[in-house]
């Protein structure tokens, strides 16, 4: 138990150090436009199909659950506002981040882990190229741009899912549903969700890159790094979500 705890604390320390190195690199080194764009496609565009499915069903389920409870108090017309607020403040950023951690965090850890165990990271160093600037920073910059954008997309699709259920399944008048959604949705709700998404993007990249760069011992080590990248990212996302919720307006 003590060994596990010390190993976890060391990992945490290495993640903090990596984050610091990333920040210095972002400020001091030139940005690699093509690599950043490639990563934006990986994290953003290629994740769209999965997030779309997740978002539309989340919005629909949320509408169903809310409708059944609110009907008891004859507040059916408020379903739109509950769906919109829940999605923009909470479900949009968290679920998007979990999907990105599963899809892109795992592939980042696997790619960097494979590069580590096949000595490609060492080869970069011998060619006087800093692996953090070459491999990590483009991913970091892409993630902090794409996570908020993906979250906006998720919010929109989930709200659309709620609308479809509310209007076509439960017969709520379309204008009433839209009014409830727009009247009760504050810019603060959206901003709070996007701030969370930004933090989650940082968590996913720092965790998955650190796990990948720390991989040891061949295919098994890469597998372990990949699994722990997803598990640690997901836990950090959920824990930080609680604290961010307390801090954000």
């Amino acid at each position: 138990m003590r060994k596990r705890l010390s190993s976890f604390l060391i990992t945490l320390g290495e993640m903090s150090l990596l984050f610091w190195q990333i920040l210095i690199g972002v400020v001091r080194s030139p940005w690699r436009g093509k690599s950043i764009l490639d990563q934006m496609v990986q994290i953003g565009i290629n994740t769209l199909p999965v997030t779309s499915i997740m978002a539309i069903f989340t919005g629909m389920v949320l509408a169903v659950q809310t409708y059944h409870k609110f009907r008891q108090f004859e507040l059916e017309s408020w379903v739109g506002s509950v769906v919109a607020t829940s999605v923009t403040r909470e479900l949009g950023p968290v679920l998007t981040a979990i999907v990105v951690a599963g899809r892109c965090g795992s592939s980042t850890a696997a790619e960097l882990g494979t590069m580590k165990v096949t000595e490609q990271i060492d080869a970069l160093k011998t060619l006087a190229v800093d692996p953090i600037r070459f491999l990590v920073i483009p991913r970091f910059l892409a993630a902090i741009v794409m996570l908020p954008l993906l979250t906006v997309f998720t919010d929109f699709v989930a709200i659309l899912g709620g609308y479809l259920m509310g209007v076509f399944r439960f017969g709520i008048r379309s204008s009433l549903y839209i009014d409830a959604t727009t009247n009760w949705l504050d810019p603060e709700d959206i901003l709070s969700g996007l701030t969370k998404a930004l933090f989650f993007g940082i968590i996913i990249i720092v965790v998955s890159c650190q796990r990948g760069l720390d991989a040891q011992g061949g295919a098994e080590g890469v597998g372990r790094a990949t699994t722990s990248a997803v598990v640690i990212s997901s836990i950090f996302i959920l824990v930080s979500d609680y604290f961010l919720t307390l801090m954000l307006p």
Partner: protein
Amino acid sequence: MITISNLWRGFNKNQVLRGVTLTIEEGETMVIIGRSGCGKSILLKQIVGIMKPDKGEIFIDGVEITSLNEKELSQVRLKFGMLFQGGALFDSMTVAENVGFYLSEHTKLSKEEISLRVKERLSLVGLEGVEHLMPAELSGGMRKRVALARAICTNPKVLLYDEPTTGIDPVMSAGINRLIRKLQHELNLTSLVVTHDMACVYDIADRIAMLHKGEIIEIGTPQEIRSSPNPIVQQFIIGSSEGPITGDS
């Protein structure tokens, strides 16, 4: 050229290098032999600054490198080219991108000039028309040659070879040995080769050093090593399963 003094390095409780002291003269080919896992590759990584020793000093052209920071080390590394055991080619890049990587990262040469230099280096290692291929499409021997072309693209003063003939057939091994000799003569390189392939050793070495239990136990010309009275050296070079090495292990 390279002076290693009292170098120690351990991993947890396993002390791999125990006070290694060695000098490599300019222009010579020094071969370090020893059993698998005896710390030969670790020694190479310390010389190129990828790994820090626990204790000891390494001088490259009179500059002590163990106390340098990453930025200063990058400058020292430009004097080296390194051939990794598995080639360590970047598998997301083509052969041409791999070989020209250093030039595109550190020089302002145009694409045409880089392409010309890549062709020239590839032809020096006996490869033509492979520029567009991906590393996964190459045979083991070709990967080593491409990795060698990448290593010499930096115009290094010292070439480090980590098990250059491991995993390839005897005919290809002989070709790699000939290539090491050729590069030493044509580019006037200092070479440090780590291997346990004795055919390769006698083919290329000016001097041989044997690493055993973390220490250099014998240094000499191939003739001197062949006639060494040390039973450990004799067991290793003959390749006998009985003797002090196996008795020790």
